[in-house]
């Protein structure tokens, strides 16, 4: 189209002559459908506002014009996110929702039939807009909009469910039912919304649609069930047990649809069943999931369908990520080699360093799709390898490492992020970490990602390095020497909460079982003053990591403890620890928050109590602190009870260098430690019983010494 014609069309559209406006609308519609370039071109000309204006019935615009305007808005929504943002900013969503209002003086079934074309265009546009992550999805829950949507859903579902329906508009009825269901699927994002929709009676028409025989409507119903059942036990159970008009259980139907001919139907059914499985309503041993859903997902990975290829790995990740059973099943079903071969196939051809890549990023082109597949395969591999060593071994034997390492230098931040997660899962295996991961050269790209432009990627890189520096000393040295330490310290000052937390975490792991030299290097860079700030951070999680950091600093030689005492200041440190112990009792109304810092505080005390007579004395001199320790001897958590016993063991332990303090026995006796320990001797946890017994025997020998 020439430029002149393009401008004519824009001008006609802005005019008042309905015939010219209609003609212009038709031209715009047929130009932009299927054509991303034209969508962007027309969107930039500013016609979206005019389209929204045409939608409003108050402007005396004819039904046909309104319908065309809605259709064009829907087509625009298939463009990029920027266009969707424009559509939303222009106020299209409320106008389109208003277009679903049915006249109150007509029976709903007739009203729907009379407005069928407008309803079809409006629901189509809404579905397209709501498919974007940019859309605000709460509007359907305000005023009577959900009533309208439910009415339309029920009328259309009833119309197509009748065996001998002779409706002249069947195709439109089916589409409106499908589109309305898709809108519900996309707008149902919270637990409250799930409950509300279910109370509005959404399950019944969805069950009917699921059994309607119209494939598109069935897929939409599965999508809606997926949204409704996500992490919702009640709705998952109700959905599974709902029965079709001919008596079949919905679960049976869903399992049939996992075996459907159509790939997108299989994917939709597998997604739905995955969400229901994750809601924990399936009885063990989950044979339907292991024998039907999982193998279907693995086969779908290999299908020649872009959308299915992109989504299937993500659903698999969802299915396995929290379940060791499913990770084992995925291993046995060869999910990992399959994911690995797809990862290889989408990694080989592309040349990440090539600046002149064909394709527009994020525009749905072939390259963008390959990148999505790569990202999602890495996410799936990360999930499958979370818990089991055999899975990690299989992944490494399937030769994913070169691709995962390569992906860390991708131009696409989402791929870099996914690669970090994948490496992190693999690095949970110390055996592989020391051999394959080091050989594959994972360290230097990870260190490079610490300087990434995206804080999310930085945090993930930090999280991956975290595992690697835990108890593998050569890695500690490398990370310190190659700038990792400097980055961690820098991030502890970050405004990004995840990055800050992960960096303190990394420092803590770096200090775990570290020698005094490493400890001093770290503290020279971090500074004790800032460590004190971190110990009093507004985030309890940061406090927890900072306390653990102190615990690791204090674990080792007496000189290490001296360093911590001098660095933080003996009194200040013990004040902080004492507060953590007393606070946790004050807020001990079932809140887990306070106990988050209780355990690291207690273990720091355990480490200090190992130290010299002076260190022991510093603790014993503080009655408040000692009382708190004793009070926690009957804490509900076994690891806490155990740590208090350790405190007593260390306080009453003597070696050649440092004798037990003479006042120790009396102090402990007055605190009633002996009685508490006797109770602990019959603790349900074996570890606690053993520690209590050791502590008691040391205490008894002290008492003997006292009497001598």
């Amino acid at each position, binding site marked *: 189209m020439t430029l002149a014609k393009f401008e004519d069309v824009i001008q006609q559209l802005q005019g008042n002559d309905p015939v010219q406006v209609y003609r212009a609308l038709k031209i715009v519609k047929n130009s932009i459908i299927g*054509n991303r370039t034209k969508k962007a071109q027309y969107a930039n000309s500013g016609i979206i506002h005019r389209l929204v204006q045409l939608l409003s019935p108050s402007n005396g615009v004819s039904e046909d014009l309104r319908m065309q305007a809605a259709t064009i808005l829907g087509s625009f929504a298939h463009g990029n996110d920027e266009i969707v943002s424009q559509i939303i900013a222009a106020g299209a969503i409320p106008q389109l929702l208003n277009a679903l209002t049915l006249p109150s003086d007509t029976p709903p079934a007739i009203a729907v039939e009379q407005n069928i074309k407008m309803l079809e265009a409006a629901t*189509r546009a809404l579905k397209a807009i709501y498919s974007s992550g940019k859309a605000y999805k709460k509007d359907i829950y305000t005023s009577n909009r959900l009533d309208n949507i439910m009415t339309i859903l029920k009328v259309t579902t009833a119309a197509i469910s009748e065996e*001998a329906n002779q409706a002249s508009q069947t195709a439109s009825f089916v589409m409106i039912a499908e589109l309305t269901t898709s809108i519900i699927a996309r707008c149902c994002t919270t637990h409250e919304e799930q409950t509300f929709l279910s109370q509005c009676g959404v399950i019944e028409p969805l069950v009917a649609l699921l059994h309607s025989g119209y494939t598109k409507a069935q897929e939409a119903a599965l999508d809606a069930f997926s949204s409704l059942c996500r992490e919702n036990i009640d709705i998952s159970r109700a959905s599974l047990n709902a029965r079709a008009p001919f008596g079949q259980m919905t679960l049976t139907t869903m399992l049939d649809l996992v075996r459907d001919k159509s790939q997108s139907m299989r994917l939709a059914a597998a997604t739905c069943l995955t969400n229901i499985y994750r809601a924990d309503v399936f009885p063990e041993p989950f044979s339907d999931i292991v024998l039907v859903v999982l193998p279907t997902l693995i086969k779908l990975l290999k299908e020649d369908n872009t959308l299915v290829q992109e989504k299937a790995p993500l659903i698999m990740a969802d299915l396995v990520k929290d379940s060791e059973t499913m990770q084992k099943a995925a291993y046995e079903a060869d999910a990992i080699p399959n994911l690995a071969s797809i990862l290889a196939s989408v990694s080989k051809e592309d040349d990440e360093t090539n600046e002149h890549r064909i394709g527009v990023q994020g525009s749905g082109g072939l390259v963008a799709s390959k990148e999505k597949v790569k990202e999602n395969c890495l996410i799936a591999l990360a999930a499958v390898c979370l818990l089991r060593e055999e899975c990690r071994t299989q992944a490494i034997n399937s030769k994913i490492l070169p691709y995962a390492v390569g992906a860390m230098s991708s131009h696409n931040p989402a791929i870099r992020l996914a690669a970090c997660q994948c490496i992190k899962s693999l690095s949970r295996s110390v055996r592989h970490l020391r051999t394959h991961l080091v050989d594959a050269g994972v360290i230097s790209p990870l260190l490079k990602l610490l300087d990434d432009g995206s804080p999310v990627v930085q945090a993930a890189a930090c999280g991956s390095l975290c595992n690697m520096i835990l108890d593998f000393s050569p890695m500690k040295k490398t990370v310190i020497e190659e700038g990792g330490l400097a980055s961690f310290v820098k991030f502890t000052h970050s405004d990004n909460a995840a990055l800050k937390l992960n960096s303190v975490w990394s420092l803590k792991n770096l200090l775990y079982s570290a020698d005094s030299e490493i400890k001093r290097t770290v503290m020279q860079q971090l500074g004790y003053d800032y460590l004190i700030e971190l110990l009093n951070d507004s985030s309890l999680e940061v406090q927890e990591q900072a306390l653990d950091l102190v615990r690791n600093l204090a674990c080792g030689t007496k000189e290490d403890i001296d360093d911590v005492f001098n660095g933080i200041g003996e009194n200040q440190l013990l004040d902080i620890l004492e507060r953590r112990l007393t606070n946790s009792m004050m807020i001990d109304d079932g809140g887990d928050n306070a106990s988050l810092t209780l355990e690291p505080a207690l273990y720091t005390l355990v480490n200090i109590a190992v130290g010299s007579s002076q260190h022991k004395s510093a603790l014993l001199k503080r009655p408040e602190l000692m009382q708190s320790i004793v009070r926690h001897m009957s804490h509900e958590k076994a690891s806490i009870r155990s740590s208090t016993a350790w405190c007593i063991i260390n306080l009453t332990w003597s070696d050649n260098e440092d004798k037990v303090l003479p006042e120790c026995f009396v102090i402990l006796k007055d605190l009633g430690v002996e009685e508490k320990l006797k109770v602990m001797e019959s603790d349900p946890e074996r570890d606690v019983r053993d520690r209590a017994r050791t502590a008691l025997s040391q205490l008894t020998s002290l008492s003997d010494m006292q009497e001598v």
Partner: protein
Amino acid sequence: MSTTTTPSKKTISKEEWEKKLADVKINKQDLNKLVMNYLVVEGYKDAAEQFSIESGLAPMVDIASIQDRMDIRRAVQAGNVDAAIERVNDLNPDILDTNPQLFFHLQQQRLIELIRRGEFAEALDFASEEMAPRGEENPEFLEELERTMALMAFEDTRQSPVSDLLHPAQRQKTASELNAAILTSQSQEKDPKLPSLLRMLVWSQNQLDEQRINYPRIDNFGTADLVTRDQ
């Protein structure tokens, strides 16, 4: 149970076969659905309408949309791609917005028709303005676009290595792809079920033949007479 027969060749009598056939209960409505499915997918609009009245069975889609689909198909076959695209967009705008490959093939067909009509300047404009951006999104499209543009390089296109693009078969291919996409959007199968059932029947009979079993066979699918071969 008889134990005297030799396992050489089994014969099933016509009576026995017909009794077995009669034992299989087939829902009349299911048969009607098969017929309706055939009429709808193949686009026999009038027959579908009549059959719907006689059988009382809904055609799963409205009759008007069958007509639309047939009109669209014919428009592509007649080289009138613009009209076909407008009709599809009226029928369901999502079809071309969600099928980039189909959309590209329709654009390609438009380009072919321009070249066929000798409108080379328009063809060049169209290719650079409308089609090149699609090629950028997808390298496979770029190859096809280059092949189509090659049509213009030959004095006598019929002698060119890309002459197949001007064959009626190319229009047929595009029309079928579009037809299939419309059917999918209407929750219909791309192919009618009846022919695949017939293929299954042929396959089953061949299996029986291979087992050297003598049974009343259907040789003529038009009459479906059961014929028992002589020993």
